[in-house]
Every structure is written in C-alpha cells, then in structure tokens.
C-alpha cells in the first residue's frame, strides 16, 4: 500500500500535523493498517523533499510542524488514483505452492490438505464477518476494508474448491502421454516479468 499517497490524500483536505495524519490514516483505513509515527514523519520528509508537500515552518521540528499539499502533490495524487496497480504477474502464493506440492508428494492426501486450509479460511472469514456485523456497521472505511478481505478469502476458498475437483478428475482419468515440451510456457514468461 502507498503510505505517501494516502498521506497526500489526507493533506488534500487541508493542512495537518504529523500526529493528526497518523490518526486519520488509521481511521481512514478501518484501523487495520497500523502506522507508527516515525513512518509518518519519514514519509512527510520525503514528500517535502520531492516538492509534493510543504511545511509551515522549516525551523520547527516534530509535532509542531504543520504540512500542506502542493500543486505537484495534487497532480501526483490524481495520477496515482487512476494508475492501476500492477496485477499482471501471479503473486507467489504460499497456499498455491502447498497444494501443488501436496499433489506430488507420495502418500499425501491432497484433498485432506485442501480441506484443512478450507476450514481455516472459513474460520478467518467468520471472524471478518463478525467484524462486519459489529464495528464495521457504522464505519464505512472499515466496512470497505472488511469486504475486500472477505472477497479475497472467498476467492481463495473457491480456488481450493476448484483444485479439489481438478485433482479428483486427474486421479480418475488415465494419464495422458507426455507432450512435447513447450519452448516458451506462458507461466514462465509471466514469472519473468516480476
């Protein structure tokens, strides 16, 4: 996540102090992303150096210093909001790796491995849902963060379901003759872009 841009977004509402920025950052991200005050001042220092933010008084240090966004900062913020994050390469997901490995290790019941992960993920989803039911009910930022997490976990569970079916189908089908090696497998190409 881009801390500098979230700080710029907060400064776009008006000049603010460092401590205030930290509090508003945490409130604005549903309090699920912690940010320590050192990180805030370090980031503000960089924003100032790059001309994206400026402080009231260059002489003062620490909590007395008030920051405001510059015109360049507003442009950088607007650009960032409209620039899609890089999702082209598949992430190196540990769970995907575990299932791939479970399918290969002799004597391992891949379905049982999948089931354990499925139950764990469902329990996590239950926790997030309780948060949605309670605190997130009147907190829009938290509700959005919780929804995002629930959708992410849901996608992983769906993938596990699909993997379960695929593995069962592969076990039932006779093995196919080995194909000639693909000179440029697509996944490898994707991976190389990372």
């Amino acid at each position, binding site marked *: 996540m881009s801390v500098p841009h979230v700080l710029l977004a907060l400064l776009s509402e008006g000049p603010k102090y460092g401590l205030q920025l930290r509090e508003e950052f945490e409130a604005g991200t549903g*309090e699920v992303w912690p940010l*320590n005050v050192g990180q805030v001042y370090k980031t503000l220092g960089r924003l100032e150096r790059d001309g994206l933010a400026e402080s009231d008084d260059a002489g003062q240090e620490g909590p007395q210093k008030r920051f405001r966004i510059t015109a360049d900062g507003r442009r950088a913020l607007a650009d960032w909001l409209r620039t899609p994050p890089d999702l082209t390469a598949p992430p190196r997901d540990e769970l995907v790796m575990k299932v791939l490995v479970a399918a290969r290790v002799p004597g391992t019941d891949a379905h049982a491995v999948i089931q354990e992960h499925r139950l764990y993920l469902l*329990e996590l*989803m239950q926790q997030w*849902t309780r*948060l949605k039911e*309670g605190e997130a009910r009147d907190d829009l930022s938290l509700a959005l963060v919780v929804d995002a997490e629930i959708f992410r976990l*849901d996608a992983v569970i769906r993938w596990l379901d699909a993997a379960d079916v695929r593995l069962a189908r592969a076990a039932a089908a006779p093995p196919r003759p080995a194909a000639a090696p693909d000179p440029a497998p697509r996944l490898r190409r994707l991976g190389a872009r990372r």
Partner: protein
Amino acid sequence: MSRPEPGGDAMSVLELRGVSKTYGQEPTAVRALAGVDLSVRAGEMVAVMGPSGSGKSTLLTIAGSLEDPDSGEVRVCGLPLAGMPRKRKARLRRRVIGYVFQDFNLLPGLTAAENTALPLELDNVPVRKARAAGLAALAALGVADRAGWFPDQLSGGERQRVAIARAVVGDRRLLLADEPSGALDSVNAGDVMRLLHEACQRGVAAVVVTHDAQLAAWADRIVLLRDGRMTGQTTRPPGPESLLMPRETR
C-alpha cells in the same frame, strides 16, 4: 406440545443422529446422506456447505420433517420424528419450524402483513392475534411500513425480509433456510444473513444451506458436506478483535 422424551440433548433444538437417505433402487441408487450427525442448539446458527449433490437440501428436508430418513434418528425440540403421526408432524411444522426459501415464496395475492400472519392463521390462531404477531415480526425486520404492500410492490431485499418475518413469526424455534439470499447482490445478501443471525441471537436455532462461503461465514459454525457425509466443520473461531492490530504496539 408434549414434553421432550429422554435420550436427546436437552439443549438441542435439532438433532440428527446417523441419518441416511438413499433415493432410487440399485444399481442406479443415489445416496444423498450417509450417517450424518448434527446437533443445533437454541441460539446457534449453523451453515451447511457443500457442492451441488452433496446432500445439503436433503438434510434440510429431513430436518424439516418433510421427508423421512431411511435410517437414523431426527429430533426437533427433543421430540423424535420417527413414528410421529402425520397430523402432529404437520402441527410441529406449523408451530415450531420456519422455512426461508431461495425464491422467497410469498403469496402474490396477500399483503406483507397477511403473508407473515398466514402460518399462525393456518394454525387456527385467532386472526387479530395472528396479525399482531405478524406486524411484530415485520417490525423486528425493519419492514413494518411495508405491512400493507403486496409482494410485487416490494424490492428483492424487502421481500426476503418479509419471508424471514413469516419464518420467525410466533414462537418458532427452528429456522431452516435454503440459499436464503437468492439472487440478491452481496450487500443485500449479507443483510439477509445478518437478520437470520439476529433471529438466532433472540434464541432461534437455524440451519442455513448455502454454497456461498461469504454467506456461510455469518454462521456460528460451518459444516461441510460431501457425497452425503460430513467431512469437517469449523471450530468456534476467536472473536474479531484478534484481527485488529494490538493497540499497545502503535
């Protein structure tokens, strides 16, 4: 209602023990349930998840006494369903069990209030008393102002609220729901689950069948079915506070 017979779990509103059900004859017989044990306590919401054909809907129809198992025992509020005369079973269904269906199943010619009071009226509760209970149920679900509206005048979310009100009206103890959010979008579907969960917090036991993990996550416990067998269930997860950052480290 007669007293619970000894042998059941006193706290369980619904108890299934070794329940099996097979449809058709060999060699084409389909085993829908194979030795399923499930106990649901008052105030507890259990979600049953599984791929299609896993036995979810059969479990629900057997729990709702709409179908008999081939073997095993089913108790509702401690009462064994096996051998229960048809009339008593029907009365149990009207008084104790509420159903929520995927497509709401509201009668189009009746208003929301009339739909909600219908199960009580069918059970010979005096009309005025039934209507009052119906209005109270609509109010609990936040749709009291729609009492005089007909189903086709209601939004999808409102229709499902009325359907839930009808399912919990009076003194229902067991709520059975089959994909209760139907075709609602995820936010409205979440609202439906929230309402079902709130009904459980008022002491109702619920079994919700769904293939959707997001909806199942509203439940206190999630049971996984596959090929008619229970393959696992969640243990009670820790509270949501464990997801939030520890404040002292900030």
